[in-house]
């Protein structure tokens, strides 16, 4: 898993690529909690480069979502590959968080 981040207007964009599994998810969670700690509250997670997500990834996402909710922030996603979209769909995460087709749409949409 690789994480990149950039700020665009109010959005703190996190680009996640590779695999988000039991080994790498804790790093995603820790990094996001640090960014929230530093005051970021509108997280947009772009998954264009993500090939794989397991329940460990969803667990970390939910933890980050709960934290953002508690500080009045928001968490949204963009660019899910089919296998990742499938996992989001059957776990109902797709109705828990806004999911956008592309990063561009996500930035225009909010």
């Amino acid at each position, binding site marked *: 898993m690789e994480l990149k981040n950039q700020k665009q207007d109010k959005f703190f964009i996190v680009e996640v690529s590779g695999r988000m*599994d*039991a*080994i790498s998810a804790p790093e995603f969670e820790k990094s996001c909690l640090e960014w929230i700690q530093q005051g970021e509250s509108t997280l947009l997670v772009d998954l264009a480069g993500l090939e*794989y997500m*397991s*329940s*460990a990834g*969803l*667990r970390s996402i*939910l*933890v980050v*979502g*709960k934290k953002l*909710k*508690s500080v009045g922030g928001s968490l949204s996603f963009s660019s899910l590959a089919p*296998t990742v979209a499938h*996992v989001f769909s*059957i*776990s*109902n995460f797709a*109705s*828990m*968080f806004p999911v956008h087709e592309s990063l561009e749409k996500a930035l225009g949409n909010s």
Partner: protein
Amino acid sequence: MSRLRLPASMESFGLFRSFVLEELERTGELDDLVPKVDLVLEEVLVNAIHYAYPGAHGELEVECLSESPGKFRVTVKDWGIAFNPLDQAPPDLSSDVSSRQVGGLGIFFVTQMTERLHYEYRDGGNVLTMWFQKNGGN
């Protein structure tokens, strides 16, 4: 039938994964099963590594086999505490972030992404068998 037995630790995870995915690749015609097998295997192995041997060392064994054209079978065994994953309550799938319970999705994915599941406690161990079917829906 190919078989791998290793210590139940996260260090073994990568090798178990290569073992199963190489075996699946060897069948030639089951490539589209890779994402499901990959995910289900992680869920089952990570659970066994985390929960089967609380405070102790133990081993896991994974067996796999292309049973018939289009059908791939994976069996995971451990000799830890008896646990039937087919007996678990469904997870909280509600869509409210604040109230939704964390966890429970691993076993849920296993039930959703396999064609058939069989659990048995046999010879002092848990034996979970999973079947994957090409073009099997889900």
